[in-house]
């Protein structure tokens, strides 16, 4: 295999199974898929893909890259690397950095750093409100018309709690086809020290929690606001069966509501908290198994549109505290595909086409990314991921390319491994390693 490849070189992928269907070759040239069928590898760099499944490059609607501000936890480069290793070709970088992404200048800075890293397309999410304070709108339109072309807006980490502000944000972004991604959490039902799901486990552990209803009342309010304003709303990291019911109802009404679920909410449950290990402290919190089952069904039947990682790196010293004092969040980019494969495909809830839908096509559509999430057809951008579907991988947090180690999957065995990732025809990952 040649180690020197420039954009414009030809790449032939031999024998990949497209969405798990028929095995075929793909010729990639000038950043697009040039041919599909039997292709000669002559004069081209060949990637042997026998037994591998080809999916469109994955798109993450919800990533925390920590730069600017907390470059000790993650940088745009290291986070991009984690994304590429996880099979992603595009990520949306949340706005809760320091400074907050609430101006065109800040958004362009994130965008440019993503381009400079060059491993995935980094699209900044703009804050809904200035400084994430929940009071005045951030410069939504200037971010939208900036070089970063921001379309997704979120105060993630915080809920846009004020109904008047949320209503205006939903109305305002209609002018440029934006969408508000809401972190649904009623602050009066989730106290300042709340650190986990409120239920039997928290009652026994003596941990202050917040109940599922704190999420559900905001989801319910927001879908009604979407109906009133005729706007789009996206529900970030849905975590409860009750939220699923509300979203299902909203979609049945024809409202323009979309939703995402994280890999961890598809598998991990609140009883992991009995050891008080802050690795499992996350917002929204891990919930009981009944919620997990409802989320899986909702992802399978399309009520939930997308899987989004909520990749949330934290420096060790921000996690090595008592549980209530430790930071919220867990890593997710490198393991997301394996989790979805294990949980959803492994239980016959999704096939590969379904995995491509929830991890690539739908998130790309929600975020308005035309170059991503497209079908693997001739002429489409050559953003794709090759997966070894049967690889059994025991996760080792120290093998991560992220700067952080708050990995809730450490020691777990998952099925499926990313073999290669290609961004506009250029390999970013080969044989599971960064190029």
């Amino acid at each position, binding site marked *: 295999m040649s180690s020197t490849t420039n954009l414009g070189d030809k790449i032939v992928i031999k024998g990949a199974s497209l969405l798990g269907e028929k095995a075929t070759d793909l010729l990639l040239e000038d950043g697009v898929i040039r041919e599909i069928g039997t292709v000669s590898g002559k004069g081209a760099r060949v990637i042997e893909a026998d037994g591998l499944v080809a999916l469109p490059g994955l798109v993450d609607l919800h990533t925390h890259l920590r730069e600017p501000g907390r470059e000790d936890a993650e940088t745009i480069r290291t986070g991009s690397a984690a994304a590429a290793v996880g099979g992603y070709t595009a990520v949306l970088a949340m706005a809760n950095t320091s400074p907050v992404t609430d101006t065109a200048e800040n958004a362009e800075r994130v965008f440019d750093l993503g381009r400079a890293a060059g491993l995935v397309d980094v699209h900044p999410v703009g804050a809904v409100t200035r400084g994430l304070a929940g009071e005045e709108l951030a410069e939504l339109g200037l971010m939208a018309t900036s070089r970063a072309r921001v379309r997704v807006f979120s105060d993630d980490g915080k809920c846009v709690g004020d109904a008047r502000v949320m209503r205006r944000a939903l109305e305002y972004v209609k002018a440029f086809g934006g969408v508000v991604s809401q972190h649904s959490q009623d602050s009066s039902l989730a106290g300042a020290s709340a650190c986990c799901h409120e239920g039997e486990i928290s*009652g026994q552990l*003596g941990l202050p929690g917040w109940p599922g209803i704190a999420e559900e009342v905001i989801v319910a309010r927001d879908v009604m606001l979407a109906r009133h304003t005729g706007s789009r709303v996206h529900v970030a990291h849905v975590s409860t069966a009750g939220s699923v019911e509300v979203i299902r109802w909203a979609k049945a009404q024809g409202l323009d509501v979309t939703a995402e679920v994280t890999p961890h909410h598809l598998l991990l449950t609140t009883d992991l908290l009995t050891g*008080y290990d802050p690795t499992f402290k996350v917002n929204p919190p891990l919930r009981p198994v009944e919620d997990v089952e409802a989320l899986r069904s909702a992802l399978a039947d399309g009520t939930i549109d997308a899987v989004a990682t909520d990749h949330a790196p934290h420096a060790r010293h921000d996690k*090595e*505290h*008592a*549980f209530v004092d430790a930071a919220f969040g867990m890593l997710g980019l490198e393991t997301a595909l394996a989790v979805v494969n294990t949980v959803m495909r492994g239980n016959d809830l999704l096939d590969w086409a379904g995995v491509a839908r929830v991890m690539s096509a739908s998130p790309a559509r929600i975020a308005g990314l035309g170059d991503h999430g497209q079908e693997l057809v001739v002429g489409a951008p050559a953003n794709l991921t090759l997966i070894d579907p049967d690889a059994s991988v025991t996760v080792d947090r120290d093998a991560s390319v992220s700067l952080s180690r708050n990995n809730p999957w450490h020691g777990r065995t998952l099925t499926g491994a990313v073999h290669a990732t290609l961004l506009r025809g250029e390999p970013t990952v080969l044989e599971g390693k960064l190029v």
Partner: protein
Amino acid sequence: MKHLLSINDLSVDDIETIFTTAAEMHDVQRREVKKLPALRGRTVINLFFEDSTRTRSSFEIAGKWLSADTINITGKGSSTSKGESLRDTVLTVCAMGVDALVMRHHASGSAQQVSEWVDAVVINAGDGTHEHPTQALLDAYALQQRLGSLEGRRIAVVGDLTHSRVFRSNVLCLTKLGADVTVVAPPTLMPSGVEAWSKSAGFATSYDLDQVLPTADAVMMLRVQRERMNGAFFPTAREYTVRYGLTRDRLAALKPDTPILHPGPMNRGLEIAADAADAAQSLVLDQVSAGVAVRMSVLYHLLAGEESA
């Protein structure tokens, strides 16, 4: 048993062993010369991140009477993720050469986390709203002294259960010892998920103190913070007293020999009337005295027991 973090760490046999030794220590307590040489040369640090008078001094006396070098470190811990991490704090303390860490901290689970970081024996002297195992042991010990076996005894635990580590340790300890426990609180102060928990753990719940009191063999009143009304847990201190306080009228409804317990510090006039606190059947001061004996026993078994085991 390497640490004492939760009542769940103890078998019934462990508890009986602690009580047997505590009874011996209790005798020592009544001697003129109280010092035993058992823990000579051992170092016990009382690491208290939260204010405490009775628990800290009780552990201090217990350590001193066993001849351990007992040192108190107090101060507010880093309550945000910005200060020194809890891990750094305890590693620093333990690097000085410590055999046992008696720890109180505002965060539930902190004692368990610390036990995973240090080599020293960790004794949980109260972790947030989670547990306070030596308090439950001394309560059960004091009760046994008064009632004999707790098997089948009906014990009411009344008060702010949600925020009470004393409740959590006590319900585990008393049910382990075979007592028939009913916990009483307004619905707002019941721990979340108590319906399922009480079923699996085998205790009862009630919102109605007057229904529970007449048949109770012992009543444990828990402290209620006056500020709880700010979180809409109850309307006023007055209403709380009327509905859930051990008032003079309710004292009269008790059997005259029914023991009354309170872990202190008491809010006289709120959860417990002065008449009840000072009644002949009140065990409040017995609890304090039992506390030293039980903590001597716990220190002895965790530290001296290390070599014999």
